């Protein structure tokens, strides 16, 4: 295509065009790199910013959510907000901060229904199965129940009371004659709605909802739980008592 065998066109206008193309191509590559880096760094959002029910894992969420705000519009409790530049989560994406307005766990899950992209997965039809985060007693030193008092507020407000939060009784070593009613969260049933965090009576909530990737990890693949494998297999996994090698110094007697 070029006018000369060296590959550099002799016609100054075409040479200019080629130069422009290289320059612009280079500029575009720089722009793409910067935007990619920014896209990757946007996956980190503040721990207190929670995604709406049914949200895909953060990485996929940023590929899916078009920042339309339809979920925000259909949330009857004004729980959800769209992120402004300075809010922390990727610009324009929906989030809520439990301590401000928690999710009221609507039976009909209007936010998910409104989502046009599946960033909020339409497969979520039972709000009790939502996983917006997991509550954690982040401050054992200030939680009133853990000091031996009977506050119980987080436990009382939990929509999944006695499943997501239970009170576990133990001996109060300080007074030696009372009990401690420790609020214990069970990640399987906690939806991360944040009602507990919202209602904690302390100035700074002693219970906080954290993102599941921080607070509720999956069981490791390579550590098998013998008792679970046993039920799965429907019986003992090894037939006979194992014959284990005897370890003793050579020549020694039992």
């Amino acid at each position, binding site marked *: 295509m070029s006018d000369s065998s060296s590959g550099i066109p002799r016609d100054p206008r075409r040479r200019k065009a080629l130069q*422009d193309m290289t320059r*612009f*191509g280079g*500029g*575009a*590559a720089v*722009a*793409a*790199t910067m*935007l*990619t*880096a*920014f*896209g*990757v760094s*946007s*996956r980190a959002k503040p721990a207190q910013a929670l995604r709406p029910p049914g949200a895909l894992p953060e*990485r*996929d969420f*940023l*590929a*899916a*959510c*078009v*920042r*339309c*705000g*339809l979920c*925000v*519009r*259909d949330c009857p409790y004004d729980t959800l907000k*769209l*992120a*402004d*530049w*300075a809010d922390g989560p*990727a*610009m*324009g994406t929906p989030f809520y901060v439990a301590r401000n307005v928690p999710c009221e766990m609507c039976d009909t899950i209007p936010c998910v229904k*409104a*989502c*046009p*992209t*599946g*960033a909020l*997965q*339409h497969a979520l039809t039972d709000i009790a199965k939502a996983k917006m985060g997991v509550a954690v007693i982040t401050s054992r030193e200030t939680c009133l129940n853990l000091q031996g008092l009977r506050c119980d507020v987080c436990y009382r407000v939990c929509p999944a009371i006695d499943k997501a939060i239970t009170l576990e009784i133990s001996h109060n070593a300080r007074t030696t004659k009372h009990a401690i009613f420790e609020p214990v969260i069970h990640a399987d049933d906690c939806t991360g709605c944040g009602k507990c965090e919202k209602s904690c009576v302390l100035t700074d909530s002693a219970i906080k909802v954290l993102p599941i990737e921080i607070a509720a990890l999956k069981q490791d693949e390579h550590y098998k739980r013998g008792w679970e494998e046993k039920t799965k297999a429907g019986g003992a996994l090894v037939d006979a008592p194992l014959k284990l090698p005897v370890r003793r110094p050579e020549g020694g007697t039992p």
Partner: protein
Amino acid sequence: MTAKARPKARPYVDARAQKGLWAASRFLVLRRASQLFFLALFLSGPFLGVWIAKGTLASSMTLGTLPLTDPFVFLQSLAARHWPEGLSVIGAAIVLAAYLLLGGRTYCSWICPINPATDLAAWLRRRLNITFTAKIRPDLRLYFVGAVLAASVLSGSIAWELINPVTALHRALVFGLWFGAGGTAAIFVFDLLVARHGWCGHLCPVGAFYGQIGKVALLRVTADNRAACNDCMDCFAVCPEPHVIGPALRGERSGATPVITAGDCTVCGACIDVCSKQVFHLGLRGRNAVRPDPSMTAPSPVARVVSSQPAVLERDLP
């Protein structure tokens, strides 16, 4: 090349004198009305409790039945490897079809909330006689479209929406997220002081994407009355994409179509408003007929203008 001539500070003077105020500002008035109208659809809900359009320009639901999704955002989402579940597929198809009919970058001049800001910058530039402009080639934005799509693939996120000042301004207006309007302020300053039509005419990948649709879109502006052109250059002064006019307006000798086929044309109609000789009209792609040279039929130049006026106005009313 002709577009390089220094724009006049008051290009509308002739048109107003010869056609009257309305005929010289119809498209401007209609465009502002359209921009306000589309904004009002989104604002009636939060302000009056009457929900017409919910959502934002990225994706919306009108009257609970009509889903609309920006095809460029949709494309980035696909590039980021999300297969959409829900109404966004239909929404994007509807919007794409609409712009294939209505002109592609009609989005830019009739809907985009940034347009009034960049129009204002261009107007101020003319009035304040700011002639300095950085030289950026108009096709730089196409490279940006490529960069945005590449970044979407590589980062697995809808890359442009992370910083897009267009949707950020819309969210500022509709959801009250005012930091998002900062980008628009920067664009205004850039357009005013750094480059003429700097943002919309050279950089914005959203406009560039719609420009690709515009390359095949049906509704176009046509210089079908180009024989009447008196080379006043007013249209070049007001057009946000002056390079699109030349081929159609000056195509007489080469026999090129009078239709402005370039996708960059935003179908804003500024040329139609500003032309005192009624050279431009709205038209359709493929309608390549030119109006006969009026000097063949009309006896004097004065009579020519007067006699052609009423018919033209009727035809143009949307």
